[in-house]
């Protein structure tokens, strides 16, 4: 490297940004997180609208079928819901919670 290049490099080095700039990094990451949030909200909107639209389209077919099977399924569904509630209340360990395990 020549002296001329050294001088150019020294002049270029003046006004160099700091090696660590938390303010700049934070600003960039704020914008990244904001964009990510906006993208997630947009995706959720699209999925919700799509799901709602699909449900609206199939509802005339689905409704009679649900009515037909609901009477037969109601007792079994009730039992399953009660079992899930009991598991949640007992913390997933029914045997020890009921004193059946030492």
């Amino acid at each position, binding site marked *: 490297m020549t002296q001329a*290049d050294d001088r150019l490099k020294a002049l270029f080095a003046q006004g160099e940004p700091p090696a660590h700039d938390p303010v*700049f990094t934070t600003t960039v990451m704020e914008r990244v997180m904001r964009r990510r949030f906006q993208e997630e909200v947009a995706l959720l909107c699209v999925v919700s609208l799509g799901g709602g639209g699909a449900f609206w389209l199939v509802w005339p077919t689905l409704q009679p079928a649900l009515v037909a099977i609901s009477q037969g399924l109601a007792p079994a569904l009730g039992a399953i819901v009660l079992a899930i509630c009991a598991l949640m209340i007992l913390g997933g360990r029914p045997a020890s919670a009921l004193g059946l395990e030492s």
Partner: protein
Amino acid sequence: MTPASLDETLVAAAQAGSTEAFSRLVERHQQALRAFLRRACGDWAQADDLAQETFLAAWSRIGRLKAGASVRAWLCGIGYNKHLTSIRSAGRERARASAYEADRDPTLDASAEDKLALERAMAGLPAEQRACVALCLAADFSHAEAAEALDMPLGTVKSHVTRGRARLLQALGVYDDAS
């Protein structure tokens, strides 16, 4: 861990969706990118805005970055394209440049005068030549790295650097001891 392998690890984590890894990439490369953009466009505030835009674009495109590629060169390439897009609005560019000149302190010491002469000479270079000079003479990029970052042929980069260097030295009144 070498800087390149640390970059590879961080890129892989960012590609998997880690914002923490991307934040570390921003921290590691903000200086090089901002310095390049400051030299390429001459306006520090605009350069920092472009750097932020560059990192936002990089976050969106991180999945396309190939394993082993230079993150610094990739970011400078995105930044350069953003800079080219911004200078297409020539009127706005002229207004900024004149405001920048008007804000300058008229009382300057010898070193500041040299720096001003350098900035004026840089401002007089065409955008492509200026970008090549900013990468190769100021940021220690090899000609090949600069060619990859700026998406230019290697020979074009070399000739831009040679011509740009000559014009800068002439503007500074420096004798070129290489010739």
